[in-house]
């Protein structure tokens, strides 16, 4: 009889456990797709969004420029004008339904908006030029704008690499951690310990086993992204998969480290949540990190999810490949090696 390799058998087992566990399958495959569909639909067509402007009824509409302010604003098709009482308009502004309020008094004209808000700033500049032109400003230079869509600048193109990273993180952390904890609870780890199987093979099998699983989840996201939103990666899919594997290895090792001594599923759940939730918010999965304060950006760039999101995005959007992603790759490899080493030291078999 030919001799089976314990590492290969254990790894095959990981895949089997995943494939035959319906809930694992559901979360890994359908959750990211659900996110993509919901967010993709919510944010698509955002480039045509109109500017919401508030006008308080009963103000002097013409003074002091002898133009009809509300009429001029309404005549610009990029503006939607809300008319109402002071209370109504202020309330709408507070709720974010209105980006800016135009107000007049005998001394002049005011635009009220939140200077920290992108929408407010945008609205203010559109209001200004609309009214200036209505009042008779002639621009020395005639500029027309041509509307094109650069591939990869849509929100969905930004979002899909982020969702890939997120789904690799959550499925590696939760899947691996829970599996080890339940193996320990059922005394299966102790049973393994009573065989000559080398303990590190059990740990490594989790990383290799995840490889098959993440190929399935990455493929599911990419195929759905392509079919629904025409998403295509600028860089090669081999680079994308290779880099995603580095992420899988890093998060699986982190999960093994968290599960090294835990026998209670609730504790395990808590630990993985503490690790994953803050990263989910600050790593730039949903929005660019460009607007973060500098000190936060400094810390965040060393998080494994940040490295994974950035790397995947640079491959998918900018066509980077592994050799141009040195710092991200080093960060992920460091997490993998350090966590595995620590886990091997700390691991309890029962």
């Amino acid at each position, binding site marked *: *009889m030919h*001799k*089976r*390799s*314990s590492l*290969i*058998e*254990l790894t095959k*087992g990981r895949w*089997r*456990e995943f494939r*035959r*566990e319906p809930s694992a399958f559901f979360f890994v495959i359908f959750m990211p797709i659900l996110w993509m569909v919901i967010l993709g639909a919510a944010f698509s067509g955002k480039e045509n969004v109109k500017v919401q402007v508030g006008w308080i009824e009963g103000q002097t509409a013409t003074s002091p420029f002898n133009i009809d302010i509300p009429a001029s604003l309404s005549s610009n098709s990029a503006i939607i004008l809300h008319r109402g009482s002071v209370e109504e308009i202020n309330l709408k502004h507070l709720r974010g339904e209105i980006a800016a309020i135009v107000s007049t008094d005998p001394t002049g004209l005011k635009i009220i908006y939140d200077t920290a808000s992108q929408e407010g700033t945008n609205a203010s500049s559109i209001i200004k030029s609309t009214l200036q032109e209505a009042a008779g400003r002639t621009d020395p230079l005639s500029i027309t704008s041509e509307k094109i869509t650069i591939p990869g600048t849509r929100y969905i193109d930004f979002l899909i690499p982020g969702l890939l990273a997120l789904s690799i993180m959550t499925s590696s952390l939760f899947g691996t951690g829970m599996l080890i904890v339940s*193996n320990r609870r*059922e*005394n*299966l780890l*102790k*049973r*393994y*310990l*009573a*065989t*000559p*199987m*080398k303990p590190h093979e059990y740990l490594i099998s989790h990383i290799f086993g995840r490889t098959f699983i993440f190929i399935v989840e990455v493929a599911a996201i990419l195929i759905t992204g392509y079919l629904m939103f025409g998403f295509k990666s600028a860089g090669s899919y081999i680079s994308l998969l290779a880099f995603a594997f580095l992420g899988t290895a890093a998060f699986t090792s982190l999960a093994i480290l968290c599960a090294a001594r835990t026998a209670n599923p609730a504790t395990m759940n808590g630990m993985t949540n503490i690790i994953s939730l803050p990263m989910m918010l600050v790593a730039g999965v949903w929005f660019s990190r460009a607007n973060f304060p500098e000190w936060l950006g400094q810390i965040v760039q060393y998080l494994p999810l940040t490295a994974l999101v950035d790397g995947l995005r640079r491959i998918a959007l900018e066509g980077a490949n592994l050799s141009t992603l040195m710092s991200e790759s080093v960060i992920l490899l460091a997490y993998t090696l350090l966590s595995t080493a620590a886990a091997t030291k700390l691991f309890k*078999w*029962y």
Partner: protein
Amino acid sequence: MLPSISRFPVVDAQSLTKKFGTLTAVDNISLKLEPGECLAILGPNGAGKTTTVEMLEGLLTPTSGHLKVFGMDMQKQRSEILERVGVLLQETNMYKRYTVKETLQLFSSFYKNPDDPLAIIDRMNLKDKTNVQLKNLSGGQKQRVYLGACLINNPELIFLDEPTTGLDPQSRRSIWDLLNALKSHHKSMILTTHYMEEAEKLADRIIIFDHGKIIAEGTLNHLIALHCDGQVITFSLATNHKQILSDELPKVLTSLKSEHQVFSSAVPIGNRVEIVAHSTSSMITAILETLKKHNYEVHELNMRSGSLEDVFIKLTGRSIRDA
């Protein structure tokens, strides 16, 4: 496979002690297992059986003491030893979505010279379950899968921690048949059990544990002759009232003991009293007289020759069923 002919005992444990914090679970025990021998460890719950066996399996490190298996040191040559050892733990659940074949293939991959998983499946009488997932097996069938995993490396030394606990009588018997077949292949075995019948059927030698110590050791006949030589008389009172029983039985016993010195032991178990007697007729007379004096009617009076169970009761003061 030839029986291993060895100058060494297969297992040689000297003064093993295991402490969990302040609790001494196993207290300075020594035991040897000769090649081809089957040793049964009996003892009530918490006596330290599992702790002892797990030290012998190399799963727990003894707090103190020396352990050699196949003449090798467990700390230094662990994987060499485990290559030749089979283990059935007291409580394990293997992955429930593996099939029987997948489970045994996985375990076979851990050893240098494993048996063919399909041959093991056949030996465990699980051929029709080869491709069935563990979650769809009965308790007895699952236990046979675990036993198969324990035998996959064709071990010379087998540890079985309560191999039939929780099984129905029929499954228990089928496990006993499998174990008896192993015995005829000169495997060395250590098994723990709560079933006297199991120890009587399988063991060449029996060790009784209590509170982490060995309190008796020997062959079945030796133990019975030593601790239960005579007839066992059992009687019960014609009442089931707990209060009366707990108040009155001790009085009856004291009275019996002070007035008649003919018995060697008397132990109350529920509403029954068991007494080992050498001179049965005078003992029965004594019992009836005493009960009459206390105004009790005897409900049942039985007499039989001593068994392992009686030895156990006499030594631990507990019935094995309560233990």
